[in-house]
């Protein structure tokens, strides 16, 4: 039997399979390399970086909710320079495409980071305009169509790398924002970042998170994410990386059938550290059973079938 073609394209970037890791849930890739060969993944999206190091928010930073996780990490990271100098060389040894997730307080910071990545040998940039856990920048850019487009244009002007823009679900009209970043020069769109939420500690009678609000992720958010992938993939020509609650290959298939060209696994890594590789196997198995030779035939199949 012919082997199944799992390759997928995100603009100029070709991935050997459609499974990547969600930023902030896979560190800088090296930790999980202790458990399996991360070279098997379609790509590794690293923890969100900023120009300067950030200490992050005070604890408690995480609270579990039914089928979900609220986090308020606050973009703790060592800064771009330290990543390029100390971490990237080790990560490159694993022969896996590296996608760098970037955040900034200002549009200039996004532009400077994009410029800083040009000669680094990473495969793509993912622009995070959707972090709900920082006071300046972050989600503010992702909830205004004008600012989302401005950030995208500024990054585009400073990089020739494939440019992925990661959108926030905390908006009324996701399609308008997606159209704006597409027009401003994005090559692909990531959907979705976490949903703004909170929890109360009834024993201590105060908010459970140190930062009061946090971002909700995990299986609880999957229906919202899937709906947004469905809407955006029909309205915008760009490839989409779908994420939000993926915990099995079935979940990943739902995103692909809804219009995603690739999927990203986040919170699921914490529950099953080998989930990404199990999903790759599960996708191949599904294609085999369904007699499909090329996984790209499945992208958006659910809306073509309506």
């Amino acid at each position: 039997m012919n082997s199944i073609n799992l390759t997928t394209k995100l603009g100029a970037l070709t991935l050997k399979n459609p499974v990547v890791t969600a930023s902030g849930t896979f560190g800088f890739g090296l930790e999980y390399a202790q458990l399996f060969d991360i070279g098997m993944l379609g790509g590794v999206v690293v923890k969100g970086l900023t120009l300067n190091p950030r200490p992050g928010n005070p604890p408690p930073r995480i609270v579990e909710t039914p089928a979900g996780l609220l986090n308020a990490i606050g973009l703790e990271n060592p800064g771009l320079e330290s990543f390029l100098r100390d971490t990237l060389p080790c990560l490159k040894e694993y022969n896996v495409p590296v996608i760098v997730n970037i955040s900034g307080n200002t549009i200039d910071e996004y532009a400077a980071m994009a410029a800083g990545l040009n000669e680094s040998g990473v495969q793509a940039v993912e622009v995070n305009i959707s972090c709900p856990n920082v006071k300046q920048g972050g989600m503010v850019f992702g909830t205004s169509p004008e600012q989302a487009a401005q950030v995208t244009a500024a990054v585009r002007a400073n990089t020739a790398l494939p440019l992925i823009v990661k959108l926030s679900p905390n908006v009324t009209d996701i399609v308008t924002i997606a159209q704006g970043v597409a027009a401003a020069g994005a090559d692909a769109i990531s959907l979705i970042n976490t949903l703004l939420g909170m929890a109360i500690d009834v024993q201590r009678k105060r908010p459970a998170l140190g930062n009061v609000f946090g971002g909700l992720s995990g299986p609880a958010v999957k229906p919202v994410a899937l709906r947004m992938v469905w809407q955006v993939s029909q309205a915008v020509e760009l490839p989409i990386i779908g994420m939000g609650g993926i915990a099995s290959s079935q979940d990943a298939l739902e995103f692909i059938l809804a219009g995603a060209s690739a999927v990203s696994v986040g919170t699921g890594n914490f529950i099953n550290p080998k989930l990404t590789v199990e999903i790759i196997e599960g996708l191949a198995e599904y294609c085999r059973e369904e007699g499909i030779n090329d996984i790209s035939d499945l992208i958006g199949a659910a809306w073509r079938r309506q």
Partner: protein
Amino acid sequence: MECNKVEILAVKAVSQHYYLLTLMAPRLARSVRPGQFVQVRVADGLDPLLRRPFSVHDWDAKQGTVALLVQVRGKGSKMLADKRPGERLDVLGPLGRGFEISETKGRALLVGGGIGAAPLWSLARQLKDKTWDLTVLLGASADSLLVKAVDFSHLANTIIATDDGSAGIKGKITKLLPLAASDYNQVYACGPKPMLAALAVWTKAAGFPLQVSLDEVMACGMGVCLGCAQPVKHNKSVNYAKVCTQGPVFDADEVVWNE
């Protein structure tokens, strides 16, 4: 480190709130060190979603067995206590940096508050093997929340305190410190933060080095989510350390206690 489904050999209630889970996990039993922990998936479903961290209480490298001592606190620990022998449990580990044991023998004080005594048991065994001289202080709010007091007394001079006086001396564990006064080369402790903070003040005044095992809510347990942050002193500034990989055992001097 590995992530595997291992067989549960026994689940035994050892007191009203504590259960001892014995697992067949040969590789874990060969590689684990005192103070390290595992992340256990308590159910296959999505609620509870996250794994739960538990210290490795005891192990037998020859038999290939590992024991966890579980206090029933909420739904995850209750589900663990309800497991039956023969069922399989998804275990990730060993994780974290455990207690440091100096090669030159000396005199050690071990202080355990409530379930905090769980990781001190394997530490006590190893120190005893290296012929250290041990004193153990165990405290809890009540008798039913004391951990394995009898076993510790086989290894060491063991002093007990309970808040309600239902066992040992009535009062907080810190009240016992003068009773245990001696010259210690190392103090080890695990328990509630206020207890550890009080102990840090006492050991500092006495000039004893103190290693504490900290407890923070965890998601990944592997250093990737940055969820388990604990403020620590670094040179002259304060940083967040990851309890799961830089700890759970820290030098008390590094820890910022007044959060």
